[in-house]
């Protein structure tokens, strides 16, 4: 309940900021709502943002459960998306059911490796995982940009993007969700994301590995005494975090775009932090939180057109204030103390 209040507080403060830009906060709010859910088309776009946010939310959450901050989902998903696109471009002869499976697996391995490096450095060398994952984001962006522009560029376009994957890599013909939302990138991977969230919930609360992971996160010393190897758990958690973020390749390459476009992600990895936080790292809550954040993001995209002074960057202000509203729950205590003194 407090989290919902924190969310609303952050949203309200952000909307009040629009007064400085000479806008009516209520108007801005209505634009956000209309632009996120106003039509089947708008809803489709909202859902197409929701899917990668579920994956990234799960990625950040699994790190949190093991007591680690994964700020690296952005780099991990970049590695996955570019790898998946590369397989689809470089091996056009692989037949259908095998093609998307192999491409996705390759992407997940690349993303998992990216997470593993951070996990290994944290567990074995004691490196600060926040800085390491952020640096890995920059390195991933550089590598992906080189691969896209120099190795598999799109010959038919001036845009910074890879060539299209061979048609049998995409599951468009079998996609029921895509049919519900014509002309939008929404696709069946949304259903998969929901299933993955449920699987993660089962993993965390119903399996021994999940228990060990949470034990290390909540009390590393007690976990150590109970004979759980913190090192192994930390490396596993970061690798899994990478894999979760890597699933973005499914929604982006195999489900909708069919290629890697530089800058396709509006910092999904970053927004994933807000998603995980809003859901208290509960995988099932992440589905709802990702939908909320997806709606905010889609809603803000129309601010460019419908207001004169507010742009889509405004969604970052809202996200930041929502995070602060949720994370600073100490204000309850603070208000109490102030009242007692006053």
């Amino acid at each position: 309940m407090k989290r919902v209040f924190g969310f609303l507080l952050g949203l309200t403060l952000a909307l009040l900021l629009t007064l400085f830009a000479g806008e009516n906060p209520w108007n801005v709010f209505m634009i956000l709502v209309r632009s996120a859910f106003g039509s089947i088309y708008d809803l489709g776009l909202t859902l197409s943002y929701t899917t990668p946010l579920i994956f990234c939310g799960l990625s950040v959450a699994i790190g949190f459960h093991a007591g680690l901050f994964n700020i690296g989902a952005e780099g991990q998903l970049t590695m996955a998306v570019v790898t998946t696109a590369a397989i689809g471009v470089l091996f056009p002869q692989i037949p259908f059911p095998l093609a998307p499976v192999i491409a996705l697996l390759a992407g997940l391995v690349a993303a998992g490796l990216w997470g593993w490096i951070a996990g290994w450095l944290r567990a074995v060398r004691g490196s600060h995982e926040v800085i390491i994952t952020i640096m890995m984001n920059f390195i991933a962006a550089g590598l992906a940009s080189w691969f896209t522009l120099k190795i598999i560029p799109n010959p038919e376009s001036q845009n910074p993007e890879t060539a299209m994957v061979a048609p049998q890599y995409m599951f468009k013909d079998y996609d029921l969700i895509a049919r519900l939302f014509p002309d939008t990138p929404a696709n069946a991977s949304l259903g998969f994301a929901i299933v993955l969230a449920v699987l993660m919930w089962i993993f965390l609360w119903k399996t021994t590995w999940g228990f060990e992971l949470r034990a290390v996160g909540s009390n590393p010393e007690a976990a150590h005494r109970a004979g759980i190897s913190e090192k192994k758990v930390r490396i596993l958690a970061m690798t899994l975090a990478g894999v979760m973020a890597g699933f973005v390749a499914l929604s982006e390459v195999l489900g909708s775009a069919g290629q890697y476009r530089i800058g396709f992600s509006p910092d999904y990895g970053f927004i994933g932090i807000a998603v995980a936080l809003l859901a208290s790292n509960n995988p099932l809550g992440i589905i709802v939180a990702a939908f909320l954040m997806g709606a905010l993001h889609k809603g803000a995209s129309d601010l460019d057109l419908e207001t004169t002074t507010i742009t889509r960057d405004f969604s970052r202000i809202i996200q930041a204030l929502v995070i602060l509203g949720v994370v600073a729950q100490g204000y309850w205590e603070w208000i109490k103390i102030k009242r007692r003194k006053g």
Partner: protein
Amino acid sequence: METMTWILALTLATLRLATPLVFASMGGLMSERSGVVNVALEGFMLIGAFAGAIAGQYFASAWMGWGFAILAGLVIGALYALFVIELKADQIITGMAVNLFVMGFIPFVTKILYSSTGSTPALLVEDRFTFEPLLMAGLLVAAISLWMFRTRSGLWVLFAGENPEALTASGVSVRKVRWSAVTLSGAFAAMGGASLSLFLASSYSPMMTGGRGFMALAALIFGKWKPVPAFAACLLFAFADAVQIRLQGVQIGGVEVPVQFVQILPYIVTVIALAGFIGKSRAPKALGHQ
């Protein structure tokens, strides 16, 4: 002779590029030595770069820009202190939220001021710094190393980070010490940002810090939370950056090295520095504890 000019140019470039890192890393030192983790340095730097560029351009004076950058840094530092010290919010999450807020806030303001979300207008050459921030960065390191380990108030900061209970027992408010340290941290990091927009470049451009806030933090950790070693680490990262700029377009064995490979060099050096040598580096004991 040509090698000499080359080495000289590289040394100067290293010193110039180290300037923003040194300021930010001293900002990180203040905050972390007092026991407060600070991953908001990136946001502090961006705000400093932005405020510096606007005021510098408005008053046609780099010093006015510098002053406003410090002011903006103090404000955002105090805001961060409010959240992590008073409201007891998680320090890393709050830091990331501050960064995110700044990344949304700056285009919000530029849209109102200049009806664009890109760069600020450029400063005239004579309104820019030529060497002053470099000098100030060196002085700041010297001043902090003397102050922190030789004076009473410097020791307060160290105790707030190592043994807050002892500080409380001696009648000094840990809360007040941390408030001051974190607020100053904002000012120092903002100076680092301002040296980007008023010294290395002549305007603010979106995301111009490019992860330098995090590199500064890495330099601090690499430098074992001590001013002079952190300064040396900043020089190392700046050297990687200078080499990176020099290497662009250079051919090795007849093959041009891809520019992207060259550009990621400073980030790789940062990862290697954090991974290889950190060994016995010990964080302040109370770092991150509420």
